[in-house]
């Protein structure tokens, strides 16, 4: 898993890739990726009588590293004779599927690979339903599956996804499950999300009742498992622990059960041991979902109320919002209001997702579907927003926290003439990723560009990589920074800003100490789970990163869970890489926002032959300035090739130089011989160098290769 470096958890071994698929069953249109995907699984059985019952489940799935996961769906259809379509399903064909056969399909297709060493939050409402003749059943299932061959094939399409495990929108679909004579409709919905930004959904699950917590029988509890657990736990959801991959040779479900008992205080007997690959105990999981989770109480007689849990942008139709109905029903032509913006829209189209869009006339409480209502921007379909009928005001859902940018970086076209092309690429990318904040920015050296805010470093890298790979954009990305805050002391400045506390996103705008009462830096609470062999090393790097240990417990005989309060700045660049490499890949890491803390931070400039390199301006903690400056200079010295003249590399605070390295001029750079047979090779080499030169960034007369910035920004502990 060499490529997993940007993910905030580790895999000792490549995950089991435990499922195999029949070739025909892969969705051609689905995007694939490995990531934290919060799912919303909603079960509903439309009622012919007034008292219907439905079950809907939100599953937040962290299918992390392991997940060579991709989203797929299977549609099983069995026609039953003599049955008319049920109204709620409009044009959907009629299917009957014995529960068992449905399960066997799920199993074969690796349903539970979704959960591979991740956890799954399940929110549902149950409508038990006795006497309805719902002999028409549709089974549409969406899952994240690990299959080596298929993955190779599909992942090759999007390099960034394979390498990074980016946020990809999964499919939304429905599944019927029949248990003890009753049929449950499970609407399986995916909302976007990632381990970097799980807090985004933390509030939404307060409306849920249950969780499937999936743990890898081989790896045991990972840091992100803990984070997901607490999301669900704090929302007071029923948690069903599931131990997957028990078929693996090194699987030790007993140990994992004990870990779960120790860490989460869940009795071992509540764990379900499964093998998604072999199908072992898969049905039991669904049975337990039905058995353990309390029924929901939505009624179609209630006023219409729906949660927006995802949105896409379609160039032809505008915003397509995915919604879950928590009451009432919605029809075509209805006028609805977004609680967040208070704007009203007319419903042009709506339908079910199976997972392809199937237009219907109505959606009912408990169902999940899509709606197109003339929204022009993704921002209008705020994730977590509540939609309601113009006539019936309802209490809005608490809403998801708006995605909060944690990492900022400047982005500039390599060549200013590419500005508009880059702008269009950035626009296209942000259309479907509203969590990226975009602010126009410009600098003397780099020209016009943007200051972009990302949810995490991974998010940033993915974004940049996609720009390069999908839009062939050549960009300069500045050092990632975290949003610092300053409490201003200067009355003039306070007046100017209209407030005392300002957030500093761009190091260039860092206010001087003389006008500031106090600087604040963002903090995160980090969870590290590691075999105890690495405790010493890990504690020492944490200490180096100004982290404060808050807690440390053994979760089993030789695994330790540590909690550290980190300045976010200290982990944004390479902490995870380092942790992973020093623990041979066994340690996992996850973090959550922990507010701001006062800190003595200062601005440091990097100079090349006296000219500041704007991209490298950083805000550092005072105690780290000298070592950070020296390290930066040393790394620049290595990263910038020798040139025809001497280069002074300096780190400075204000006008005071605190570190210096020198790159000596070279005296000779010429191939010793070049005759007739050497010309072709020589020309090729020179042309390559000339091409490379085009991509060079110039600071004064110093040529700085793009890689130099990236290399330099990687912080290394000695």
């Amino acid at each position, binding site marked *: 898993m060499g490529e997993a470096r940007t993910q905030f958890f580790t895999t000792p071994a490549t995950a089991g890739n435990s499922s195999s698929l029949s070739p025909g069953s892969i969705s051609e249109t689905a995007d694939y990726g490995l990531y934290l995907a919060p799912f919303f699984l909603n079960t509903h059985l439309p009622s012919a009588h007034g008292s219907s019952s439905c079950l809907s489940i939100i599953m937040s799935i962290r299918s992390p590293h392991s997940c060579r996961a991709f989203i797929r769906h299977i549609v099983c259809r069995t026609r039953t004779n003599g049955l008319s379509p049920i109204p709620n399903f409009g044009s959907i064909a009629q299917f009957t599927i014995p529960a068992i056969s449905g399960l066997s399909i799920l199993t074969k297709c690796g349903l539970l690979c979704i959960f591979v060493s991740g956890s799954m939050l399940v929110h549902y409402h149950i409508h038990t339903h006795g006497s309805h003749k719902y002999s028409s059943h549709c089974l549409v299932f969406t899952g994240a599956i690990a299959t080596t061959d298929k993955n190779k094939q599909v992942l090759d399409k999007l390099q960034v996804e394979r390498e990074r495990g980016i946020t990809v929108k999964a499919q939304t679909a429905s599944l019927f499950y029949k248990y003890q004579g009753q049929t449950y409709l499970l609407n399986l919905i995916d909302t976007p999300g990632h381990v970097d930004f799980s807090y985004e959904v933390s509030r939404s699950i307060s409306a849920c009742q249950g969780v499937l917590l999936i743990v890898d029988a081989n790896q045991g509890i990972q840091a992100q498992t803990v984070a997901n657990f607490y999301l669900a736990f704090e929302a007071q959801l029923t948690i069903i622990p599931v131990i997957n991959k028990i078929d693996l040779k090194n699987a030790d479900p007993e140990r994992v059960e004990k870990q779960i008992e120790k860490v989460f205080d869940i009795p071992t007997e509540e764990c379900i041991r499964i093998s998604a690959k072999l199908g072992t105990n898969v049905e039991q999981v669904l049975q337990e979902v039905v058995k353990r989770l309390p029924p929901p109480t939505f009624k179609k007689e209630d006023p219409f109320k729906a949660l927006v849990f995802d949105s896409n942008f379609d160039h032809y139709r505008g915003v397509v919002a995915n919604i879950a109905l928590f009451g009432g029903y919605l029809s075509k032509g209805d006028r609805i209001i977004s609680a967040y913006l208070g704007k009203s829209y007319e419903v042009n189209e709506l339908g079910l997702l199976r997972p392809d869009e199937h237009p219907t006339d109505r959606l009912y409480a408990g169902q999940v579907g899509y709606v197109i209502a003339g929204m022009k921007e993704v921002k209008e379909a705020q994730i977590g927003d509540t939609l309601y009928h113009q006539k019936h005001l309802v209490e809005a859902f608490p809403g998801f926290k708006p995605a909060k940018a944690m990492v900022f970086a400047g982005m500039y076209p390599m060549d200013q003439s590419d500005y508009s092309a880059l702008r269009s690429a950035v626009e296209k990318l942000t259309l479907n990723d509203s969590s990226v904040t975009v602010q126009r920015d410009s600098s003397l050296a780099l020209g016009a560009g943007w200051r972009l805010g990302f949810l995490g470093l991974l998010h940033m890298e993915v974004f940049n990589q996609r720009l390069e790979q999908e839009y062939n954009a050549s960009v300069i990305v500045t050092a990632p920074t975290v949003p610092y805050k300053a409490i201003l002391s200067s009355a003039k400045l306070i007046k100017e800003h209209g407030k005392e506390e300002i957030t500093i996103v761009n190091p260039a705008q860092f206010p001087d100490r003389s006008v500031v009462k106090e600087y604040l830096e963002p903090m995160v609470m980090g969870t590290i789970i590691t075999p105890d062999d690495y405790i010493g090393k890990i504690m020492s790097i944490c200490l180096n990163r100004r982290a404060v240990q808050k807690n440390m417990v053994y979760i089993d005989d030789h695994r330790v869970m540590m909690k550290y309060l980190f300045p976010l700045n200290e982990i944004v660049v390479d902490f995870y890489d380092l942790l992973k490499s020093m623990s041979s890949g066994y340690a996992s890491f996850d973090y959550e926002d922990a507010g701001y803390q006062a800190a003595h931070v200062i601005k440091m400039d990097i100079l090349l032959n006296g000219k500041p390199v704007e991209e490298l301006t950083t805000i550092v903690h005072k105690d780290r300035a000298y070592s950070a400056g020296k390290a930066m200079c040393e790394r620049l010295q290595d990263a910038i090739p020798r040139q025809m003249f001497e280069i002074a590399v300096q780190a400075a605070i204000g006008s005071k130089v605190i570190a210096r390295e020198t790159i000596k001029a*070279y*005296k000779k*750079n*010429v191939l010793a011989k*070049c005759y*007739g047979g050497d*010309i*072709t090779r020589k020309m090729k080499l020179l042309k390559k160098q*000339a091409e490379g030169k085009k991509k060079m960034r110039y600071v004064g007369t110093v040529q700085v290769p793009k890689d130099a910035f990236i290399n330099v920004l990687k912080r290394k502990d000695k």
Partner: protein
Amino acid sequence: MLRTCLTAVRGPAVCVGRCFSSEVSGADSTLAGFSSPPFSTEASLYVHWPYCLKRCSYCNFNKYIPRSDNQDVMLECLQRETETLLKLSQVSRITSVFFGGGTPSLARPSTIAAVLQTVTRHAGLSEEAEVTLEVNPTPVGSSKLEDFLHAGVNRFSIGVQSLRDDDLKVLGRDHNSQHALQTVAEARRLCPGRVSVDVMFGRPGQSVASWELELDELLSVCDDHVSLYQLTLERGTQLFRQVQKGQLSVPSDDITAVMYDSARRILQKRGYLQYEVSNFARNGAISQHNMSYWKASQYLGVGPGAHGRFVPRGEGYVCREARTQTLEPDVWLREVQQRSHGTRRRIPLTHLGLLEEVLVMGLRLTDGITHQHWQLFSPRADLYQILSSSSEVQDLQQTGLLILDDRGLRCSWQGLALLDSMLPTLLLLLEAYITQGLDNNSGSLQL
């Protein structure tokens, strides 16, 4: 210093003069269009002998240890391919011939004679045309020199490489310093003033002092021409692996820079004037053949893996092509037997591509590129137009590395050692100018 250097290189002025008539004759085709290069009626000829007795530890060149004696079939195929390419190029005159390798001194003198006869039969080869043979300074090679002379060779290039026996062993050479000295003496006896020696610096364990001493020693025995090479570690060679494993260490870039610089000074002091990045001549004894590469003249490449640059006029083309012959000798032999040639790759050079080669090769000469020379290839865009407005070029001029004046474009003494760093800049400017020019052209055509 530069001045002396430059005057000395006036030596080849004879050649330039001699060529000039044909330059004029070539001018017609130049005016006819962009892509038609000058000199298309003459060319030099490179003949590759792919075999060696032994593999040198630093060499990644196209050479093979022969499995059996195939001199006869080699002879036949070299002749045949020479004939084919001569006809294809329709050149009326071969200006020089170079037998390289491999170890061409392993070939029978009669083979060399036969190839030269083929040239004479199908194109002109004047009495004075330079015919060089690369020689491995082994006793066997040495004994054959006289026969080679009679076969038509009139210049020897001897791969001395080093006068340190230990180093020769590390380099995997099959000769010792004694053999080298004997061979040089024999060659000088046969071809006075027309012997070149190759010497290598930057060898494993070499110091600046020992290099200076060795060069001094060499200069006291050698003839009027010296080629100076820095040992380059090529991937896939034994030496590369040894250095990688740490069994051997080569001097750092800083040290080799000093070695190069001191060699240039020593050579100059001894009367050898540098005329190209790695070539030095006394008494005007420059290599005419190699000069034609640096002047971007046409050349035919015969033999396995040989490269050529010529206009295949015989097929009705007007564009110069970069051609490569099939690499593996056995395959090449078969192809020549079947199709009369072993050309594996033909890439037509664009106008820009040709100018790039003119620029890159020409700047290796201490004389650089004269305006007249440039105009032969680029009648519409002169060097001033292309380069002088660039601030980077102005910087290079101000720092004294590059000279652009009424004579033309060339490197200064220090600039020559930094040529490869300047070339990307110059190539980008050339490309920008030419492609922009093309745009303008097409624009005006549309109008």
